[in-house]
């Protein structure tokens, strides 16, 4: 296992380097200039050139790339052109929102996805199964934009039970009740993302429930609840864990629509804004961090397989 871990961690380095290289050159291929975007339409060509020179953007692309790689290996992700702050600082400020939103949304995903998948499986072919399948399709089909605004109108405007938008930092204010700002966005995201988990849980559980050892367990007189939750669900877990892990990774990095609707300053919104502003260092920093997250979650998922199924061994 240790060898496996070391090998996987070592393999992350060339992967991240490749991501860095591709993203750097791809971003610089996009037309548009951060200096021109920043100064606006009334700036003269000379003013734009002066700012480009001050920012180092007039250097050859390859020179900029080498400087950037050198900085990254020294732990420096560069300075955001838009925020005039280290990219690492900009990302850290967004991390709280993104991580907490992803965790809260994941709770909603699990609370909706797994029970509905189980119930749909054990009542397969009945009206309950059809009902849960319909709910799952609705979840996958309803635009998060629309659902978010609807929840906002209902719970924030009409009932005045929850805040409409924004999220004051828990770390800065020390106020844990600020989590209530994430309730509506979490439900919005959780409902949309629970559909796939529900369907995956249902279909895998259905396969497992046909196995001989399930019949044997029932024949032994075990309670149905024990048969389902202890024996069947565990064996159906591996594909479900895969879906959960990639859902979580997606929630961490790509929820721009929900972040826009609820005015949350997360990573998703930062990516889109940075691309529109041509804030190259921030875009590259996000690429590196998100790639690392996906690799790390992938690794954790592989380790989880070994725990769930003792037959899986890592050399």
């Amino acid at each position, binding site marked *: 296992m240790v060898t496996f871990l070391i090998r996987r961690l070592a393999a992350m380095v060339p992967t991240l380097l490749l991501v860095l290289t591709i993203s750097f050159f791809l971003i610089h291929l996009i037309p548009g*200039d951060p200096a021109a975007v920043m100064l*606006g339409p009334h700036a003269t060509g000379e*003013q734009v050139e002066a700012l480009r020179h001050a920012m180092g953007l007039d250097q050859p692309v390859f020179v900029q790339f080498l400087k950037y790689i050198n900085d990254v290996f020294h732990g420096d992700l560069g300075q955001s052109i838009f925020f*005039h702050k280290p990219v690492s600082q*900009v990302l850290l400020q967004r991390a709280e*929102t993104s991580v907490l939103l992803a965790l809260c949304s994941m709770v909603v995903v699990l609370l909706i996805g797994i029970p509905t998948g189980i119930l749909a499986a054990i009542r397969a072919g009945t009206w309950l199964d059809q009902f849960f399948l319909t709910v799952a399709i609705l979840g996958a089909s309803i635009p998060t934009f629309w659902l978010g605004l609807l929840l906002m109108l209902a719970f924030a405007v009409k009932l005045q039970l929850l805040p409409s938008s924004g999220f004051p930092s828990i770390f800065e204010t020390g106020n844990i009740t600020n989590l209530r700002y994430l309730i509506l966005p979490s439900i919005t995201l959780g409902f949309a993302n629970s559909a796939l988990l529900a369907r995956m849980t249902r279909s895998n559980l259905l396969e497992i429930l046909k196995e001989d050892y399930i019949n044997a367990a029932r024949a032994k007189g075990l309670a149905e609840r024990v048969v389902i939750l202890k024996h069947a669900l565990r064996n159906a877990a591996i594909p479900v864990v895969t879906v959960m892990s990639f859902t979580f990774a997606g929630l961490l990095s790509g929820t721009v629509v929900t972040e826009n*609707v609820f*005015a949350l300053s997360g990573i998703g919104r930062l990516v889109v804004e940075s691309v529109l502003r041509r804030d190259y260092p921030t875009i590259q920093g996000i690429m590196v961090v998100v790639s690392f997250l996906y690799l790390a979650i992938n690794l954790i998922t592989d380790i989880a397989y070994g725990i769930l199924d003792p037959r899986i061994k890592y050399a």
Partner: protein
Amino acid sequence: MRKWVIGAILVGLVVLGGVGQEPQQGGILRIASIGEPPTLDLMVVTSDLASSIGQHIFETLFTFDKNYAPIPLLVDTYERSEDGTEVVFHLRQGVLFHNGKELTSEDVVASLERWKNYGVRAPIFFKNVTGLAAVDRYTFRIVFSEPFGPMESLLAFNNGGPCILPKEVAETAGPEPISPDQYIGTGPYKFAEWVPGRYIRLVKFEDYQPVTAEPSGYGGRRTAYVDELRFIPVPEAGTRVAGIQADDYDYAMDIPADLYDAMVADPNINTFLLTPPIFPLLFMNTKEGIMTNQKLRQAILAALDMDPILQAAYGPLSEANGSIYPKGTAWYTEAGVEAYDQANVARAQELAREAGYNGEPIRFMASTSYITHYNMALVITDQLKQAGFNIDLQIYDWATLVARRADPGLWDMFLTHHGPVPDPSLLTPLSPTYPGWWDTPEKNALVDAFNRATDFGERYTIWEQIQALWYEYVPVIKLGDAFTLDISSTQVKGLDDPHHPALLWPYFWNVWLGS
């Protein structure tokens, strides 16, 4: 009879409730904005949002009253020499920066020097400046090679303009925007904090030294009643509206036109149509390509029916007005306007024939970064195709469009909008270097004469000639006027005062939170 009496009592209560309402101190005014500005260094950017926020921190030598006429702000008095080339300014005394330092002429000269080197709108001002120097602690002098009519307007316009900084900040500032710890001005609010993506906080400057004159627009006495202004980026318009309704925000900027009726009908919301309006412009490439043909440009102008174009983008918050400046402003004129909004397909086709147009593609750029631009582009394309023009509509994000329009080989027309400017000298179509490149001897001569004149009557006469030429040469087509809609909770007081008109960059001094 009874109902009449009850009604009269109710009206009386409402009137009495409004009259004599004393401003209240304190509180945090939460303002939902459309996003974040690129910087608050107003000299080097022309972002409207930067001006909306930064104007509370930084002040200029002049400012604009409720009629959008320039009046002194940091300047107390000034005199012009007889030939109009030399202007001596006397500063108000005892004005303090946010770091406690008194404003002197050295700070002004250093700020103007920095503006000269890096300010976005400085080239127009400094084109004919031959001297700039401090005379004594509160006096400085500017010398021009010839009289310069727009002087006060340019010194008042903070958007890419000469905001006054402490000397030690101005002297070390280069082309890059100054950092937040250098946001030191003389305004009624001082910079406190900028948490990216969350808010920008400005707090009351307790030692602010206001002008004593009655408030009038941006001018006159500025009083900071609320303790803190908090600008919160809320990109989604529906969320800004819901936030006002849910009492999470007090003021919300830039509400879409299709929500206007609903906002007016809501008794808990006040609506504001900001003036002067912005105006969408269709720029023609007069430097290279098919649009160098004046007859063809006139043909495009003849084909356009402005009302559907404006309705597609701005709905009821638009007006088909051909004068570059709207009615009620000092520069309004109808010179040349008979060519506006012709909607005459036959005339357009005749002009196109005279131009020798044979159906060549006309490359038309627009951006989805501004949904109003995109909506207008679709209608314009349809109208022009109906008139027989071969339009190649190319849609880009704004940064890409800006990059492409710098190359005259890549486009024939592009769509943008223009913010109101206090003086025609600031209109981008009049700049020979702005994409479109209207650079003809006749126009340049008129603009030079316009800038040399100091008497308003004389300047107005020349402006009429410029507008008439604009409609004859057609370097740019003005599509109409569009009004920005902002809203506030009814708890926000002072915004509906006649001395506090809703101007394009909303301002929050002389504003307080009611109970």
